[in-house]
């Protein structure tokens, strides 16, 4: 790790200003990706602006027909939340299976989606539940938020403040974890809500994606059988020592089926 300046503001405004004023400032939430990257000397920010004391960024609240989860809310808090468990249990299940207990105690929702790791779980929730990402300047629809491998619609220094998850009629998440890292080799979130059915896949491609064919099939028949014969093409999917693109394509169907089964309860 290289030396850096450490700042710990207590308000959102101060945090945004601190990053803007720094030569190469970075927000620090849970640090689950940023700190290891810095330890490997692959990142050299001039300033880390710790969001841990910005109280307004944390917490889970019901707002009409949605749950609004603050950006610095940890995975463990989401997993343990009664609001989440009773209104979007699939989201609680997803949070409860991210990484390991240490990661869940530190890692945050905002950090996860801003980083946009192709194998992270939360992108599947954001897209699969049709959420809206709130930032310090605007609202971004889930389908516009993730733009590619580690790429999002966030502008320079733009900060995720919360994610608004509409409460679905039903939803399910199924994940095939990487045996080493427990990131998603393939994770599929399926939901049926006011705006119809969504099927979002993480881990399989460079970025989270929806499977329109499965969504249409499920709209007519919300059952595992509806998706079991629908497959995504292997070409363009991730391929590494843990899973080939072909195997990932196969797992998308299997996990979609299981997510539907979980949603159907």
């Amino acid at each position, binding site marked *: 790790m290289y*030396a850096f300046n450490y700042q710990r503001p207590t308000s959102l405004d101060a945090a945004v200003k601190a990053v803007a004023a720094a030569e190469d400032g970075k927000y620090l939430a849970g640090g689950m990706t940023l700190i290891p990257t810095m330890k*490997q*000397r692959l990142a050299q920010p001039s300033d880390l602006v710790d969001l841990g004391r910005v109280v307004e960024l944390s917490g889970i609240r019901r707002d009409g027909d949605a749950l609004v989860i603050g950006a610095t809310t940890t995975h463990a808090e989401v997993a343990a939340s009664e609001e989440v468990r009773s209104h979007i249990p699939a989201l609680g299940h997803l949070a409860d299976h991210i990484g390991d207990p240490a990661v869940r105690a530190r890692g945050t929702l905002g950090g996860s989606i801003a980083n946009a790791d192709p194998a992270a779980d939360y992108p599947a929730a954001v897209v699969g539940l049709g959420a809206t990402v709130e930032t310090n300047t605007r609202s971004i629809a889930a389908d516009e938020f993730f733009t590619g491998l580690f790429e999002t619609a966030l502008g320079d220094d733009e900060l995720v403040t919360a994610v608004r998850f509409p409460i679905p009629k039903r939803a399910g998440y199924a994940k095939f974890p990487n*045996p*080493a*890292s427990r990131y998603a080799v393939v994770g599929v979130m399926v939901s049926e809500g006011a705006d119809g059915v969504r099927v979002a896949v993480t881990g399989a491609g460079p970025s989270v994606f929806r499977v329109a064919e499965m969504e249409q099939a499920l709209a007519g028949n919300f059952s595992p059988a509806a998706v079991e014969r629908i497959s995504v093409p292997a070409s363009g999917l991730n391929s590494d020592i843990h899973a080939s693109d072909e*195997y990932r394509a196969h797992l998308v169907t*299997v996990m979609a089926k299981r997510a539907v089964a979980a949603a159907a309860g």
Partner: protein
Amino acid sequence: MTDTGIGAPVRRKEDYRFVTGNGRYLDDMNRPGQCYAYFVRSPYAHASFTVDTSAASKMPGVQAVYTGADIAASGLGGLICGWTITQKNGEPHIAPPHPLLALDTVRHVGDTLAVVIADTYHGAKDAAEQVVVEYEALPAVTSVTEAVKKGAPQVHAEAPGNLCYDWEIGDKATTDAAFEKAAHVTRFEVVNNRVIPNAIEPRAALAEYDSGSDEITLYTTSQNPHVARLVISAFIQLAPENKLRVVAPDVGGGFGSKIFIYLEECVTAWAARNLKRPVKWTAERSESFMTDAHGRDHVSNVELALDGDGKFLGLRVSTLANMGAYLSTFASCVPTYLYATLMQGQYTTSAIYCEVKAVFTHTTPVDAVRGAGRPEATYVVERAVEEAARELKLDPAEIRRRNFIQADAFPYQTQVALLYDSGNYPGTLDKALDLIDYDGFAKRRESSESAGKLRGIGFSSYIEACGIAPSSVVGSLGAGVGLYESAQVRFNPTGNVIVYTGSHSHGQGHETTFAQLVSDRLGVPFDQIEIVHGDTAKIPFAMGTYGSRSLAVGGSAISKAIDKIIAKGKKIAAHTLEAAVEDIEFENGNFTVAGTDKQMDIASVAFSAYVPHNYPSDELEPGLDESAFYDPANFTFPFGTHVCEVEVDPETGETQIVRWAAADDFGNIVNPMIVEGQVHGGVAHGVGQALLEGCRFDDSGQLLTGSYMDYAMPRADTLPPMQIATQVTPCPHNPLGVKGCGEAGAIAAPAAVMNAITDAIGTRDLTMPATPEKVWRAIQSTR
């Protein structure tokens, strides 16, 4: 049995300091004025290079930057391999030079070419980035099958064809003849995957130099500090043994990887003397992945010849063993005398021939990892036996029964050099069948099937040669050292005891087990016994801990020293009690004149020995402090049967281990709780190799599994609750009747797991680690 004596499940007394954060590991230690070392390592698997340290040397706080040229100029020697294998042609194996820092060529990713010593760790690391290395990348080879091909990139000019040695054991002609008359031959290729040891504590070294006494003290993460001192003194020639103290404090796991003498501790100690300042080095985890000696990595052609009744007539094995880029300290003996000598297994196979080619590649050096050779042998034999049973449609338990060496056949001379001293193989098989409820398997399989899962069962009837080993035997086979162990049992005047043992505990629980042994034999309360290990300034010359040898060899040395204590105590008691020595009996800590109530407890005897006012001074020296060295008469031969049951999800290829039975025979047991823990840990290790742990290099030699993001270790939820039982067939040739238990699980487990998965999915073409994708593909291939 007392509640702290032999056979009692005493809670580990060392755990208090470990769980309360009071363990003293190497990185906990610091010295005033300490500098830090950071090593410059190659990002290429094979390259020639030139190095320029001028910019790095000028960085703030930098005390020195050393390269291979500096080491060469200092006259230090290189790293050695301590076991010379004699090849088929009578020539010694080829051991190319292994300089502490590479001179002009690097041969694996992580190969080390310079070191920066600076006032701070980050300063050293910053300066290391300023060491300018011009690499010229050269072609690399990582797999043994590629490395032996004509035209493959050469690792060392000294080793044409990348061949370190070509070695054989057994009778080729007899074995070939056995195959001629076979009714059935089972043939297949067996790959034993490379594993990375992953001790929880990374390797580390802290050296300080006392210019007044000209003495170097080296604290290092070692399983055998005296062996480290011997090699660093005699071969690296850093300092004579009397001016070099090596201390291995609390060490957080080794699994073999901390047996070896590595360049970092040598360079750190040398730098401390050069700079006259303490120098500390602690590996980062990524350095551990790249530079701790790896394990296994064999490719074998295996042929098992059987008669019409399923009796084993012959076993023919041809193995390529990966040595990596350099010969590590004991690398050469692992795929030979710790491997091929175990091809007899538990069976009466009447002809065996095994040839082994050891091969250099552009990869991290390979050496012993928990089991060391014996897991590879067990995997060959037990996979072959299981496949033969399937091909002949014999029950896997039945084929083993038909071939077992029977309990009345010991001592049993094997076809591959070893003399098995004792055994009862049907006994552990029967126990294992009971534990797993073998009769209920068919029903369990049906119920799995109705849930859409494939269920399979796999056996592994393993044998190991432990308690390493008779010095004369290993000497005749090429070892550069003896393999005895030392002990010193010292009474203090107030009656408590300090035991100095040459065995080193890095998680094994010796402070408890050895204290139980001493308490049991001498009648001294358990909590008045201290076990001291790991310091060449305190303990007699010793060989250390590996090969499940601590209790069998180190414990036997303690037992011998105790015998001397008792013999001397009897003389002291006889004098005090005014009786003949022959009439003195010793039991439960008391010396008694036979047939009388005259007695003297051992604490009083100890006091009398140190305050010898009324003492037989003309025939006895004062003091009650005895040393012993124990050189075993033979290896010990733990054995057993493990049975694994798996459920495979055919949709994903995921394997879940659903039942595990382990019936082991470790001889007498001192602490059954510690033994059970060792079985759990060993099985976890072996299951890790079978399901999860696959060290992978790409074609250019980059380590793809260089962190826990990509290298999967077993976790608690990888394993089911285990059904464990032990059978006791005491070892006939050591005073404790013990054999060793630390490696058994790692030796037994891989074959049991792979036999179970291949049973479940109905094809034998599956390699370790049996990842979900591999299993899924294997299932697809059967449909």
